[in-house]
């Protein structure tokens, strides 16, 4: 799928992660393929239950079993298939080569350890530093992410920091081992807009400085427009469209993407500008309609869409989409 010579560090191929629940089989991720190049930032966009978070957890092999299993696909990271790696190998990769920042800092920061302890522990483990070196590095990282009075505050516990600060600590921890890839899962959903801006700017700055590739998982189309180079749009466990950011926003070619862009209120549109609506309800992953999962809500659905599932096809440079409707006739509203 990659068409330039820049090194691809992550290639997800036909990933399938299913959950077995009381309601039956939930195909959370159902044949997902995408890639990330060294140093670039990629957005994974979609609404709740589209599979974006599950796909990230799959990359890190953090899917809880039961009820979830990765049932198929490949996850090539720096040349090796993570799905075939041992748990020991994965432990070496997580938090070290691939780091993740979660939506809720309270669930990933250990409440009974000081910030200093948590970060330096990771440094000692993954980078083999001694206690003095790891302490210095910890303070340096906290300063890097904008924690004021870092030396003193490193001795505090997570609860003594605000939500925004906790997020920064998570970013500091994530970047402490200079990972090749940072996955940020809804990094801004539970924080205020001005804090969101601060965090995303830090990630962008650090990305430039350290050359870390970033995957930003979000439902926020504005964040994506500003902070990523390429966008992957997901719906009901599958990729429906992927393109470089400018291309996606100016020439979207999937009815879901087009509908989404038209339904989001914008700061620069006139007051009471009519929003377009995507009719219907979000999909029920344990009872997906046949054919294209989006067809019940699609303004362009044809007979074929009810029985066949479209595959990704190229409609432009690095621009793919999965839809039977004539791309030339699809335009943003």
């Amino acid at each position, binding site marked *: 799928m990659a068409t330039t010579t820049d090194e691809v560090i992550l290639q997800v191929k036909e990933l399938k992660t299913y959950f077995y629940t009381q309601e039956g089989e939930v195909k959370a991720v159902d044949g997902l393929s995408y890639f990330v190049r060294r140093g670039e930032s990629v957005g994974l966009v979609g609404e709740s239950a589209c599979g974006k978070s599950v796909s990230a957890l799959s990359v890190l092999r953090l899917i809880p079993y039961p009820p979830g299993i990765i049932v198929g696909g490949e996850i090539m990271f720096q040349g090796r298939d993570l799905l075939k790696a041992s748990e020991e190998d994965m432990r070496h990769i997580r938090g070290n080569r691939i780091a993740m920042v979660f939506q809720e800092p309270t669930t990933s920061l250990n409440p009974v350890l000081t910030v200093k302890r948590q970060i330096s522990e990771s440094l000692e483990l993954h980078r083999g530093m001694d206690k003095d070196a790891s302490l210095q590095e910890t303070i340096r990282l906290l300063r890097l992410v904008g924690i004021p009075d870092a030396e003193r505050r490193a001795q505090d516990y997570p609860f003594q920091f605000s939500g*925004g600060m906790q997020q920064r600590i998570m970013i500091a921890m994530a970047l402490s081992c200079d990972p090749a890839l940072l996955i940020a899962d809804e990094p801004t959903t539970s924080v205020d807009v001005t804090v969101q801006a601060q965090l995303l700017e830090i990630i962008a700055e650090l990305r430039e400085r350290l050359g870390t590739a970033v995957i930003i998982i979000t439902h926020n189309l*504005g964040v994506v427009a500003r902070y990523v180079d390429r966008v992957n749009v997901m719906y009901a466990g599958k990729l429906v469209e992927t393109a470089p950011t400018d291309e996606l926003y100016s020439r979207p070619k999937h009815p879901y993407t087009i509908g989404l862009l038209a*339904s989001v209120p914008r*700061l620069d549109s006139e007051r*009471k500008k009519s929003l377009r*609506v*995507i009719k219907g309800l*979000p999909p029920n992953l344990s009872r997906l309609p046949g054919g294209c999962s989006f067809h019940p809500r699609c303004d362009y659905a044809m007979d074929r869409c009810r029985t066949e599932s479209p595959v990704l096809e190229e409609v432009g440079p690095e621009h793919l989409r999965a839809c039977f409707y004539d791309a030339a006739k699809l335009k943003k509203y």
Partner: protein
Amino acid sequence: MYFPVTAGILQKKVADVKAVDGISFFIKKGETLGLVGESGCGKTTTGRCILQLYEGMRGKIIFDGTDLTQLKREQMRRMRRHMQLIFQDPFASLDPRMTAGEIIGEPLKVHGLAKGREYRDQVAELFRMVELEPFMADRYPHEFSGGQRQRIGIARALAVRPSFIVCDEPVSALDVSIQAQIIILLERLREELSLTYLFIAHDLSVVRNISDRVAVMYLGRIVEITDSDELYANPLHPYTVALLSAVPIPDPSVDRTRERIILTGDVPSPINPPRGCNFHPRCQQAIDICKEETPELRNIGGEHWVACHLVK
């Protein structure tokens, strides 16, 4: 509206959370006033104070000529028919043990507005008003999607035919593609039923779209109020400017051209707000007077109100 902070076994008050610290504004009949601000700014508290849901509030709330703070309990109870609240969380705000029909019809029963046949007809009508099918009346909340539950909450608010509705983050908990459905529904209802809204939200894009005028709050105070288009085109308060620049526009070609102002630091605690203008520690343009004197909210022309020493 201050909330006491207590400590110790005897719950002695040690400080106040100055949730709302001296605000005044009006809402015109038939308009939607948007109230925006980040967490802790006091916007939700403001909405609830208007509906007289807290004890210990100081100040006046004049609704349609009547000062609500002077009413006795029974009078206020009758007044509540005219003012309703739509909540943010479509999960927590519906009683899981009542059917949708019971939830929507409850206000009719409480206020003695309809019985028997008329009651059933009105409930059915309310379902249709929010674009739900009346046959869903026997279902329980968990059987509905988030957007549908929000519609139930709206129908419940409409049951008593209020003239004023406080919408407290009505779309924040919904998926992006469903938000538009609810925003359009609220707009339609406002027109058809001649409603007036106070629309509280943190999402500036949503507020900008649905509101006629917008008030921006910071740490318990209103820093700017003006027409929605004017606020976007000509924001005057430094906080408003920073807030707007922090909201990305879902269009890279447009977003790229905007100036970005990144505020430093966190929002201070409303227990101990800064002296003078409570935004001054984070304001790039703060001058001496900002540290000493709280700026007044003043009309600088064309019903554009700003509380800032630098704006004349």
